[in-house]
């Protein structure tokens, strides 16, 4: 009984915290957004991380500070979802530029698949969509920490004895994985980070670039 009360009480506290945090500041903004959810939570800062960008420079929390950033997770062996996402973000950026938006965020694409996606490979890959996009790779544990912090998720699809097996991202890949090939199931949100380097909003699929543009303008205006 006591356990139930405690659970209920903690659920209530969580709801209250979420309500107060997103409620006070951005409740009316959140209502006006067409394609995104405000996920800003001042009590939950992005953890410290350290990765490598596609020019082999360090990419950590500092690189997310000072400007607005659109961030997405991708992998280059992705035949459908990731190219669609990257093409959409490139059109979104073009739309913001053409409409003379106050802010055109930087675009960062972090790989789910550092085993195959080296910085060099990412550089050529993301440049196809926009020469200013920044690909980021690095240590798997660091990437997993970030994936978690963004509320993103992925799992790996491998072939084992002629059967398709889906395994959690934390499970080690078989030695032959790279040679045999594998796919990744993953969430495909695009995130907007504020100039203080924190997650502000998330855009779930499907991505309508015109609604996204107007949301970005609205968020920047009300920030």
């Amino acid at each position: 009984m006591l356990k139930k009360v405690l659970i209920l009480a903690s659920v209530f506290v969580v709801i209250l915290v979420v309500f107060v945090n997103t409620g006070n500041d951005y409740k009316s903004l959140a209502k006006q957004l067409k394609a995104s959810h405000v996920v800003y939570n001042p009590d939950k800062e992005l953890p410290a991380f350290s990765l490598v960008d596609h020019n082999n420079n360090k990419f950590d929390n500092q690189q997310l500070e000072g400007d607005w950033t659109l961030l997405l997770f991708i992998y280059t062996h992705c035949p459908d979802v990731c190219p669609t996402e990257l093409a959409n973000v490139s059109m979104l950026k073009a739309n913001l530029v053409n409409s003379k938006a106050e802010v055109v965020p930087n675009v960062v694409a972090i790989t789910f698949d550092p085993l195959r996606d080296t910085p060099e490979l990412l550089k050529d890959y993301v440049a196809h969509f926009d020469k200013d996009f920044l690909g980021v790779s690095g240590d798997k544990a660091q990437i997993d920490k970030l994936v978690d912090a963004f509320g993103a998720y992925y799992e790996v699809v491998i072939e084992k004895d002629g059967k398709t097996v889906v395994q959690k991202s934390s499970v080690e890949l078989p030695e032959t994985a790279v040679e045999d090939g594998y796919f990744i199931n993953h969430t495909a949100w695009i995130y907007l980070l504020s100039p203080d380097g924190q997650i502000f909003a998330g855009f779930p699929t499907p991505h309508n670039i015109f609604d996204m543009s107007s949301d970005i303008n609205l968020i920047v205006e009300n920030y």
Partner: protein
Amino acid sequence: MFYKIKTIILALAAFAGFTSSFAMSSPQSTGIVIQDPWVRSAPSNAPALGAFMKIHNNSNQNVKLISAYAEGYKDVQLHRTIDDGGMMRMVEQEFIPVTAKGKVHLKPGSWHVMLIKPEKVPAKGEVVLITLKFDNGSSQAVKFKVRKGKKMMMHHH
């Protein structure tokens, strides 16, 4: 007189040429017509490409696309992207069904043909020849044009 015969022969030849080329793009025998086949242009080091099209089945029988083949790729697979509550799942398909008198639209975020490990990634404007095999015994080689995105979107660029 000779001139007339020549004209008739030429006209017949032209007609034959017309019908045979027409038949190639839409085989009357099987009733399966491929419309708007395209491959999405990809980075020059892309390990996988997506190919898309509309498959019309004008016959009275349900058919299945059971395989696709293209030269210069390690593998060609049939896939479907499924948005499972925000989780984008890549699911390999044994076949893609097309109901009698129906159609199926292969497009980004849905059914697609996956071209794996290209020897060379085709550039925008190039053509990829993909042979599609159906369970009614028919097959057809289709020219897929490499382009950036859906046709409608081309106008934005």
